[in-house]
């Protein structure tokens, strides 16, 4: 998984049926200190996350199907899997 910050929502009316009712978010990969690292991309929301949240993102199709409880959807890969409360390093938070 990678650390990322949610920086936007994506609205799409016209999309393939797999994506009906699914919330898409714009995410910015970040370093543990919160600074951006790498290009933004889109991820499907699996945990009711919102803009501003620091999250972990799973980027693997089979895992995405499990996480969304959607075994028949083969078109989703990157999913927001958890909202980060805390990162602990060397006793620091």
């Amino acid at each position, binding site marked *: *998984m*990678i*650390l990322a910050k949610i920086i936007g929502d994506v609205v799409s009316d016209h999309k393939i049926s797999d994506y009906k009712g699914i919330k898409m978010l714009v995410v910015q990969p970040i*370093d*543990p200190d919160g600074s951006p*690292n790498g290009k933004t991309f889109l991820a499907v929301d*699996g*945990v*009711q996350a919102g803009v501003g949240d620091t*999250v*972990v993102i*799973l*980027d*693997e*199709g*089979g*895992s*995405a199907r*499990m*996480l969304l409880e959607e075994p028949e959807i083969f078109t989703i890969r990157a*999913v927001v*899997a*958890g*909202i*980060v*409360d*805390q*990162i*602990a*390093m*060397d006793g620091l938070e």
Partner: protein
Amino acid sequence: MILGRVLGTVVASRKSPRLEGGKFLLVEKIDPATMKGKKEYIVAIDGAGAGIHEIVFYATGSCGRYTDATEGKPSDATITAIVDAIEIDGDYVYNKATDA
């Protein structure tokens, strides 16, 4: 598999129920030639019982789901081993017993 150093833990109380019970570790990739961090970070599920500061390697993609800790669970990066030693061109660049 990719070599990395465990920097810390990541706590996420709101997460997919499928991920309950997994320990999330923050891992920085390392360059084994210098043993320095590459400032590239991933969050991995711990499949090997790793601790902070340990050198580990992790499996990515769907392969990460094939450990006891991740069986039937979503994971795209799983720590599969704690490294005891790394040898390059005949020299030990890392030896856990003496470096740790």
